[in-house]
Every structure is written in structure tokens, then in C-alpha cells.
């Protein structure tokens, strides 16, 4: 066995605390070590070439690099040794930076520890086995889950690159929350004007199959080859016949009697409806929970919608359909839901009609909304308006310690819009800290202040009513004094939480969540659109609260990763996976329970477990739990780990 060991100085990151020469002299003495060298930056081109040259000239069997964390540079060095003709899995890395030089001060002890760590890696390296990646074919199509701005942008970008996309949206129309907004901060662009053209593009795109009013039922398989079952809920309207004329909606016996979800319950719709006039597809849907015909089997003498429809598009016998598709990559764009402020009882949301959420106010502004865009709150023009920020954000008591990132700015925007509509309004914003971090945000905040909107630091303590007038009690934390304001309207700057759909989708795809319950990216800085599941990517607020520019940027990022994957005909599957020795397996199925990725499948016939290599992520849970040692973790075999441990104890 000929092992080459290379100790990196990492500039002075390592060599300041570790005596590299001493490590070299100790390691050189090991019988398996053929060569041991040091270099200032082993990851640099000359460093890599030093290793490659030794592999070629000395015929090394194994290479150990003692440097930073393998999370940082293992791929770099695996690539380097592979280029020099060695199996990349015969490479081993000792972490003497994060786990040694950075965390110790005593040079002598740090040097001893570094030498031990390197010796331990040499012991393991001697037992490493060459592994070969297997090729997996790639299905050239993608699934995008969620039809908000994130899903729309992702789908368009992928489709424009020439790959087919299935865009699944649970609601009858795409558009998501952005479609509910009136204007966007800080440019005050009309949301509909910039969103609806994209929605139309989605509907018309030859590469996009738009599946609205549909939900993902199950997902099987792994990167390159996912099999997806999609449940198309019955609309009870034949979309190929419906022209979206709306005669049915006007005729419906229940018209104007059902709270509209799109209008946050402030406007009303009938049992047959489109969520909003610019809906895509502009096709009607019957609400099965409300429709008299569907609920009671009877609607007067005959259903009025059927009578009104010239095209005979209404079909009460429609049932759900299951669509099965194969895709190579999946983008999760399930977005957010608005925090439900009823939990914050002190603000009396739900008790007083004049306490409303940011999203509700958004519908009041909208020209297509319940007031036709007039600033009317329960029929009256409010003159004294109080905004309360951080409702459901930065609040440990209710379990949301995070900042929702958009509220400061949407409050500024809404305050501006109110001032514009009601010039003599007295508007106060009670804020915790002002966060105006985006491009043009600080300038917008300054503009709003100049318009006469008062900002007072310190959040509202409670809202109460006296003699029919709302009062907001708060503390001004800059002045250090409590104060009270009367209000005709209290707007709660409600924060963002992961959408309800995230639970089921996250479960199906085995996605991790971060502490804030949003989906966890593979790396917080360098892999913000990837998940730990290969072939599954994140876009938009599903990954964390985001404004529209950030959402669109991430959506395009996710699309580029999808395209990157789909542009290949085959991909290499990671060989660091668990394998079952079926001669030894007793079929107790403990491993199956513990697998976080559902990679295990029991072979009933042979009464043994099998592991799907393409799904296995090599976490090792099964191998550790197997009582009979029937499961071996490639690259982390018991013998390799034990050799490594024995060297340091």
C-alpha cells in the first residue's frame, strides 16, 4: 500500500496553530505512507498538480489531504485524483482546520491533535475501496408545484429552454398571492400589469402543461426519474367548452352570497365562479361545498347555470381524474400563507371589523376588489389609521422568531396608497425596527415619511374599544413613554408562514424544514435553491419569506438548475450508498422504519430487504441499526470506521 499524504497550511489558517513540519515528520514514519508533503494552498492549481504528479510518478494507491472540512474541498480533491487516474473514492480528507487549528490555541496540543487526525485518516485510507458510479438516465421534463409568481417564473424559464413542464396549481387559477396585490413596492408597479402577461404566457406556452385545480397525490423515484401522480379535481365545467363568458355566474342562485377566498372574504361570489376576472385559465369552476345541485342534488326546478350556458359546458357528473407523469426534476414553489392574527388576541382581529390584515387591505385597494378600489372600510372613509408591524413575525411567544422580510415595506406602500387616496388621513406606523434593505427600499421609506406618515418605534400593546371608537395602546420606545391613539382603521402587518400544502409535499419528497418551518435549502449560502434531495429544487417563499424580486431571482435560479440537470442524457449516481447482504438479512425490517428517504423495499418472496441505490442518500441509519450487520455502508464500512477510531484512542 502506497499512501500519499498532503498537509495544507491554508495560508496561515492552519500553520499559525499547527506545526506542519512536525506533523509531516510523524506521519512520514508510518509504514504505509510513501510520501508526505506540505504546501501553502493545497487546493490551488500547483497544490493539485503536486498530488497528480506523485500519483503518476510514484504510483500512489491512496491519497490523504489534511486541510479544511471535506464539505469545502472533498469534491475538489476527488476531481484532482480522478484526473490523475486514481479512483476518486480512494481519496480521504483529514479536517485539521475547522476541527483543529481554528478551535485550539495551544500550538503544541493542536499539533498533536492534527498529527492524530492525519494518522487516523491514513488508517482509514488504507481500507478504502474503489467505488464506481452507475449511470442513470434522465427524463427530460420537469414538474413545478405551485402556480404563484415563483412557479410561473420557474415554469416559463424551463419551458423557454425547450423542456416540457407540468405546472400544478391547487386553486382554479394561477397567480398566487401576487394576483391579490394592487401595487408592488417600491416602484408602485401595478401588480396585475406585470403578472397577468406572464400568466397568459404560461397558458399559451407550447412546452407548459398547465394543471390548475389539481394537486400532487404522490411522488416516487429519484433524481432523473420521478413518477408523479396528479389529482385533477372536478371543476364540473368542461373547460374545452367553457368560454369564460360568465353568464352562468350571473345566473347562479347563490351569486353574491359566498365569501370570495380571493377577496379575503370581503367580497362575495356565487357557487360557480372564477376567482378573479384575469384568472388563467379563464374557465369557471363550481364549488362543490356550496353548489345546491352538488350538495342537495336539487337547484330549484333546474340549475340556472345550466340554463344560462349556451355551450352546455356544465357537467355535474364530472369526477376527479388521476394523471400520471414522469419527470426528471421537481421544483417546489408552494409559497406562503398569511399569519392568522386571531392568535394575537390583544389586537382583537375578528372582534372588531375595523381591524384588518395587510392582505385584506390589499384587496380594498384593488380596482377589481370588493370596493372597486375605493378606500372604504365597512362603508366609511377612515381618517385615523394605525399600522402595527411584526404581527406573527419576530415573536418567540407564538413560535415565529423570524423576520417576514416584506411587512415593513408593504406597510410603507399601503400607508402611501392610503395617503394618496385620503390626503387628510392621519397615519401612524408602529414599528419594531425598520427594515428597508432592498434596492430602492430605503429611498421609498424616506419618501413615505416625507409624505407625512408618522413612524413611531415600539409595537402596539393592545387594541380596545371605548364609546364605539378603537384605541391602540403602545409604547414609544425612543421617547420611553406610553401613548394611545384613536383609530378608524387598524392594519395588522401580518407575517408569512409556510403554506398548508407544504406539509404534504414536504412529506412526499422527504424535504427537511428549517426551524422556521420553511423548506431547508442544501446550503444557506452556496446552494440556496437546491435541497438535500437530488433533483428537487426550491423557489420563492416556500424556502423562506421573500419579496417579489428575490422570489423571481430564486425561481430563475431553480429553473437554471433544472435545465442543467435536464440537459444531460444520463447522470452519475453517487456510489456511497447502503447495500444489503441478502444472505445475512433476517428480514426484521427495522431499517425500513428508519430510512428517511423510503429507499428500502422488502422482498416478500425472499424475505429480505432491498435498497434502491438511486434513492439512498448514504445517511447510514440503516447500517447502524441493522442488528446482524447485514447492511454495509459503502465508503463508511465498520472496518474503515473502526480503524479510524482505533488510531485516535
Amino acid at each position, binding site marked *: 500500500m502506497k499512501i500519499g499524504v498532503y498537509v495544507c497550511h491554508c495560508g496561515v489558517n492552519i500553520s499559525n496553530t499547527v506545526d506542519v513540519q512536525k506533523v509531516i515528520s510523524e506521519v512520514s514514519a508510518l509504514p504505509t505512507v510513501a510520501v508526505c508533503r506540505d504546501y501553502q494552498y493545497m487546493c490551488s492549481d500547483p497544490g493539485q498538480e503536486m498530488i497528480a504528479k506523485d500519483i503518476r510518478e510514484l504510483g500512489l494507491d491512496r491519497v490523504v489531504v489534511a486541510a479544511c472540512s471535506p464539505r469545502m474541498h472533498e469534491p475538489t480533491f476527488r476531481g484532482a485524483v480522478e484526473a490523475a487516474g486514481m479512483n476518486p473514492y480512494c481519496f480521504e480528507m483529514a479536517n485539521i482546520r475547522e476541527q483543529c487549528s481554528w478551535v485550539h490555541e495551544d500550538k503544541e496540543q493542536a499539533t498533536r491533535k492534527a498529527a492524530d487526525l492525519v494518522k487516523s485518516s491514513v488508517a482509514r485510507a488504507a481500507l478504502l475501496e474503489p467505488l464506481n458510479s452507475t449511470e442513470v438516465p434522465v427524463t427530460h421534463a420537469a414538474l413545478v408545484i405551485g402556480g404563484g409568481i415563483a412557479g410561473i417564473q420557474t415554469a416559463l424559464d424551463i419551458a423557454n429552454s425547450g423542456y416540457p413542464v407540468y405546472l400544478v396549481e391547487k386553486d382554479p387559477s394561477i397567480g398566487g398571492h401576487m394576483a391579490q396585490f394592487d401595487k408592488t413596492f417600491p416602484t408602485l408597479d401595478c401588480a396585475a400589469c406585470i403578472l397577468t402577461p406572464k400568466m397568459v404566457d404560461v397558458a399559451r406556452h407550447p412546452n407548459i402543461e398547465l394543471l390548475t385545480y389539481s394537486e400532487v397525490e404522490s411522488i416516487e423515484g429519484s433524481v432523473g426519474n420521478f413518477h408523479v401522480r396528479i389529482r385533477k379535481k372536478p371543476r364540473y365545467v368542461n373547460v374545452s367548452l367553457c368560454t369564460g363568458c360568465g353568464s352562468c355566474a350571473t345566473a347562479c342562485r347563490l351569486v353574491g352570497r359566498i365569501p370570495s377566498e380571493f377577496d379575503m372574504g370581503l367580497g362575495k361570489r356565487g357557487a360557480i365562479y372564477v376567482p378573479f376576472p384575469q384568472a388563467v385559465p379563464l374557465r369557471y369552476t363550481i364549488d362543490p361545498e356550496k353548489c345546491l345541485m352538488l350538495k342537495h342534488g336539487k337547484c330549484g326546478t333546474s340549475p340556472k347555470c345550466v340554463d344560462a350556458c349556451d355551450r352546455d359546458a356544465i357537467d355535474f357528473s364530472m369526477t376527479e381524474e388521476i394523471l400520471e407523469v414522469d419527470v426528471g426534476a421537481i421544483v417546489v414553489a408552494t409559497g406562503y400563507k398569511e399569519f392568522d392574527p386571531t392568535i394575537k388576541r390583544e389586537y382583537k382581529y375578528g372582534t372588531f371589523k375595523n381591524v384588518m390584515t395587510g392582505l385584506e387591505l390589499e384587496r380594498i385597494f384593488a380596482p377589481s376588489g370588493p370596493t372597486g378600489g375605493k378606500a372604504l372600510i365597512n362603508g366609511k372613509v377612515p381618517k385615523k389609521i394605525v399600522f402595527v408591524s411584526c404581527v406573527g413575525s419576530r415573536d418567540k411567544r407564538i413560535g415565529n422568531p423570524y423576520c417576514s422580510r416584506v411587512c415593513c415595506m408593504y406597510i410603507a406602500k399601503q400607508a402611501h396608497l392610503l395617503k394618496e387616496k385620503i390626503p387628510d388621513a392621519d397615519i401612524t406606523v408602529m414599528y419594531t425596527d425598520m427594515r428597508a434593505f432592498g434596492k430602492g427600499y430605503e429611498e421609498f421609506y424616506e419618501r413615505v415619511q416625507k409624505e407625512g406618515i408618522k413612524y413611531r418605534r415600539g409595537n402596539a400593546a393592545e387594541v380596545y374599544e371605548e364609546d364605539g371608537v378603537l384605541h391602540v395602546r403602545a409604547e414609544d420606545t425612543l421617547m420611553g413613554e406610553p401613548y394611545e391613539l384613536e383609530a378608524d382603521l387598524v392594519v395588522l402587518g401580518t407575517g408569512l408562514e409556510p403554506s398548508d400544502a407544504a406539509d404534504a409535499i414536504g412529506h412526499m419528497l*422527504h424535504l*427537511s*424544514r428549517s*426551524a422556521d418551518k420553511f423548506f431547508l435549502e442544501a446550503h444557506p449560502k452556496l446552494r440556496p435553491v437546491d435541497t438535500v434531495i437530488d433533483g428537487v429544487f426550491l423557489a420563492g417563499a416556500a424556502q423562506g419569506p421573500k419579496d417579489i424580486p428575490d422570489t423571481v431571482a430564486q425561481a430563475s435560479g431553480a429553473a437554471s438548475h433544472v435545465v442543467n440537470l435536464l440537459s444531460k442524457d444520463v447522470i452519475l449516481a453517487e456510489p456511497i450508498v447502503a447495500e444489503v447482504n441478502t*444472505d*445475512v*438479512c*433476517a*428480514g*426484521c*425490517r*427495522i431499517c425500513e*422504519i*428508519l430510512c*428517511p428517504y423510503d429507499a428500502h423495499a422488502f422482498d416478500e418472496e425472499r424475505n429480505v430487504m432491498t435498497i434502491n441505490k438511486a434513492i439512498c442518500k448514504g445517511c447510514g*441509519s440503516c447500517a447502524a*441499526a441493522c*442488528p*446482524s*450487520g*447485514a447492511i454495509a455502508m459503502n465508503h463508511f464500512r*465498520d*472496518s474503515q470506521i*473502526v480503524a479510524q477510531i482505533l488510531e485516535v484512542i
Partner: protein
Amino acid sequence: MEQELKAHLKKLMASGDVAGIIALKSERGMAKPYLFADASELECLCLTPKYPMASVARLLLDEDGAARFAIVCRGCDERALRELAKRHQVDLDRLVIVGIPCDEEMARECACPEPFPSVVAVGTKLEQWEAEDIGAAYRAMELDEKLAFWKHQLEKCNKCYGCRNACPMCFCKDCELENALWVKHGRLPPEFPIYHMIRAFHLAGKCIACGECQRACPSDIPLMVLNTLLREDMEELFGYVSGTGADAENPLYTKEEMQ
């Protein structure tokens, strides 16, 4: 009780519900596990000595893919079957459990936590029963005394594998105790404490306190002290008592939702 049991089993056999009865057969003054397939053989059925019947059922069910059997079970046997079923080693739907209680003498000998099965087919179960606390003396020791105690006890081990062979819960085809990576070959006594540590780890949440290991040990190592402590830990830390019904999930084989 024996006559009563024979009558009960004859009836069961006549019903045609089972292909055979797993029980002990007396032969030349000795007892052996046996599959009674004919009513006439039942005359030779015996109840003592105590024998780990669950292991017999496990092997037999494996042999025949579909047949249903009756099995004469003590409390420990039933507990063992339940734990085996949780690990897919026996199919309880293919077994008709004929429960018999242990008398006070037998129960005391095993320090059995529950010397009767959930349903007693014949005989009467002990009305009042409290098992001896075999962990008491150990718990009273100081830490260094505890170490000295185990060092002394485990030094007696001659690695005959009797404890494992007798254990109704050991079902692996290859045993980690024979893996030289953990337990070095050709070394006696085995390196302290790896051999017994592995067994203890493997039995956590699994040991049903039948006492077979201790009875099998030729060196009189008090293995049931170790196992009793394990059972106590499982109950205290996780609220799990092994041998309880199929709906009680083993906490060591559950995963938290990924964080």
C-alpha cells in the same frame, strides 16, 4: 392442569382449526419441543421444564408458509412472540396461543415480571404476585463497586454463546458477536466489556425477561441483573415495556421527523 390442558388441546385439534400444536413432549424421562399433529400423541405432552417455545414457533413458521399452529405459551413465551412479531419474525395470525400460568415456585425462580399470559386457557393465574427486585443489590453499589462487579462477573465468560443460543429474541442469521471486528477471535475471556455490551445493546427494548440466558450460562454470570436494568431504563426513559401489545411501538426504532 396437565389433564385439563390435554382435553382442551384435543378439542382444539378436533376443530380442525390448526395444523398442529407446538408444546413439550416427554420422551424417556426427558422433554423436547414437539409439533403434535395427532390427538393420540397428546398423552406424551408435558409442561416442564420451562422451554423457550417462541423460538420453536419462529423456526416452524418459517418452514411452512401457510399453516396455522397452536402453541402452549407461558407469560414469557407470549411476550417473546409479541416482540418477534414486531420484527416480522413470526406472524401472530398464524398462531393460536394456548396460555398457561406459572406456579409460584416457577415464577419465583425466574423473578418473572408477569408469570402468566394475557389469556389463560387452563389453570389459574397467581392472584397476588410481586417479582423480586433483582437489580436492588446492584443499584445500592457505588460506581467503582459496580465496575468491579462487572469486571469480576464478565471475567468468568468463556464465550460459549449459550446466552445467545438460548435467547428467544436472537434471530439474526449472522451474529455480530462472531464478528472479529468487535469480538476478537481466540481470546478468553472476551475483551471487557464488548461481548456483553453488544448483547445488551441488541436486547434494549427487546429482552422480555424470560431468564433463559442466565439459566444457560455455565459460569453463573448474573445476566438477568443486566437485563433487568436495561428493561428499567427502557421504561423510565421511553415508557416502553417490551413484550407488550403490537400497538406499542419500540421507541428505539422510530424516527423523529427530520429537523
